[in-house]
């Protein structure tokens, strides 16, 4: 699926829509995800991995928009926040069933993004960046100011855990499988999507919007659709986040979060589903790893961002294999 690999004609398997390699890759990935908590023995890393899962969904949503369709968004935190607050408010203030709330919120946020998307995605480049940023800022202010509904800056507490019947998702391990269950489905569906008629059209828009339109691709509609889709994924992540945390406050949905997501996608690898996961994994774990440096962590974080962009321009997902190839050059049979 990664369109960036150096391809010899035979390595792409153009004959099958979903090549066995891709299926195997997904299977291995799923097994790794399912097995990950086991060696961690319920330690706090399991908890960190829950957030990796949530961030993965967010990064994936942004990557579909940015990496595939080539449209920047600096306002993803708005949809994340709408999802979280939507679920939080509906379940606490209106005692709605959490699952129902999640569905209602996801659909409404997607519809909202769809409506906003029409004027916003007409813009290009830095104007688009600015407009999406504006959407993010406005949403963040709304979370802060609608105190009666959201609890304002002091946050909204008492959000219930998700439950199926009497089975409560009330421990790290249960939440881990809950979140990653969603994340895996999102990964699978995204993998399907990018290697399909719609995915090709998105990538076509990215490479040359004019040519894509001349080929009959309704670029404007498709961009708005994928914007809505990324909002949907973000909203779902938000709903999960609020039920896992049981407390939310506006700081978790600020401009910084949008920027962090952008960083995850670029560092992980634009236009790569697994890249989004890698980016989310790295940038969520990084603060944990840098904790040893105490106050210096922010300096290291900045340095890492700069050096990774310089030395791994294609993101981790392309950079790591390239690094391996450079370190252990394999004699390759050239056709």
């Amino acid at each position, binding site marked *: 699926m990664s369109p960036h690999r150096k391809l010899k*004609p035979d390595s792409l398997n153009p*004959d099958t*829509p979903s090549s066995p390699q891709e299926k195997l890759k997904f299977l291995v990935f799923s097994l790794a995800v399912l097995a990950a908590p086991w060696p961690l023995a319920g330690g706090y890393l399991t908890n960190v991995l829950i957030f990796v899962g949530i961030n993965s969904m967010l990064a994936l949503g942004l990557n579909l928009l940015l990496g595939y369709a080539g449209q920047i968004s600096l306002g993803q935190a708005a949809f994340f926040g709408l999802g979280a607050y939507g679920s939080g408010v509906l379940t606490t203030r209106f005692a709605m069933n959490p699952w129902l709330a999640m569905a209602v919120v996801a659909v409404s946020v997607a519809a909202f993004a769809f409506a906003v998307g029409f004027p916003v995605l007409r813009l290009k480049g830095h104007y688009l960046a600015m407009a999406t940023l504006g959407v993010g800022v406005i949403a963040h202010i709304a979370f802060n100011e609608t105190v009666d509904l959201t609890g304002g800056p002091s946050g909204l507490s008492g959000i219930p855990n998700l439950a199926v019947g009497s089975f409560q998702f009330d421990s790290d391990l249960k939440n881990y499988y809950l979140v990653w269950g969603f994340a895996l489905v999102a990964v699978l*569906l995204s993998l399907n999507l990018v290697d*399909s*008629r719609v995915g090709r059209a998105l990538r076509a828009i990215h490479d*040359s919007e004019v040519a894509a339109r001349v*080929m009959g691709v309704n*670029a404007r509609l498709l961009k708005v659709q*994928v914007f809505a889709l990324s909002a949907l994924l973000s909203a779902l992540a938000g709903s999960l986040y609020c039920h896992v945390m049981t407390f939310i406050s506006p700081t978790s949905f600020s401009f910084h979060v949008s920027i962090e997501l952008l960083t995850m996608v670029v560092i992980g690898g634009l236009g790569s589903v697994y890249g989004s996961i890698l980016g989310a994994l790295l940038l969520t774990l990084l603060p944990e790893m840098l904790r040893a440096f105490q106050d210096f962590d922010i300096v290291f974080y900045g340095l890492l961002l700069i050096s990774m962009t310089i030395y791994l321009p294609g993101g981790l997902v392309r950079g790591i294999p390239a690094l391996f190839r450079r370190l252990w050059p394999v004699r390759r049979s050239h056709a």
Partner: protein
Amino acid sequence: MLRLSGIGKRFGGLTALQEISFRVAPASITGIIGPNGAGKTTLFNIATGIYPPTEGAVLLEGKDISALPPEKRARLGLVRTFQNIELFGKMTVLENVMVGLHTQTKSGIFACAFRMPWQLREERSIRERAKRWLDFVGIAELAGVEAGKLSFGKGRLLEIARALALDPKLLLMDEPAAGLNSKETQELAKLIKSIRDRGVTVALVEHDMDLVMEICDSLVVLNLGSMLAEGTPKEIQDNPAVVTAYLGEE
């Protein structure tokens, strides 16, 4: 097939085109020629809806399509290639052609994400057809290569295959022979004729006069944004105004 009626285009204060009117006959090859800056590419951009004309109308099979965006025109069978080749460089050759089949498939986001059975059927079918188009232009063996890595000549062929995949009624080609060597140009001439023989109307902008004279059924000459002449290659060759315009340029 295609009728341009009184097309004019101004960019700010600059008049790029004025009073352009001509027809492209069905199943013919029409050449649009003229010195650099005559407004040929601008005319194509207007015909395909990339920008709107300042005045005048574009009619496809008698229907006014002036207000339609490029994607709608493509669905009506109006397709083009580009002077500088606009391929989807990060996609494979085969995928490029499959984008050309976009209008002939229907699966939406959900059908694609959930791999519905009909979506898989559709996918298999367009994959086959895309390969046939690659075969038609003679680059089938490059199906899996990233399009951005193709040579200019092969890229040109891919662009044609991609355009043909739309099953167009009318194919506009912007300088198809530019950057090709003489052997490639010869093959291109053959290809264009075979396209016409499949019933596709072709209009092309071209500087290579040998090619134009060889394959075109009729010609339109532009100069400085205006129509200079219209007629068969023979007539144009004998037209004194055309000769002056070209000689004047040199």
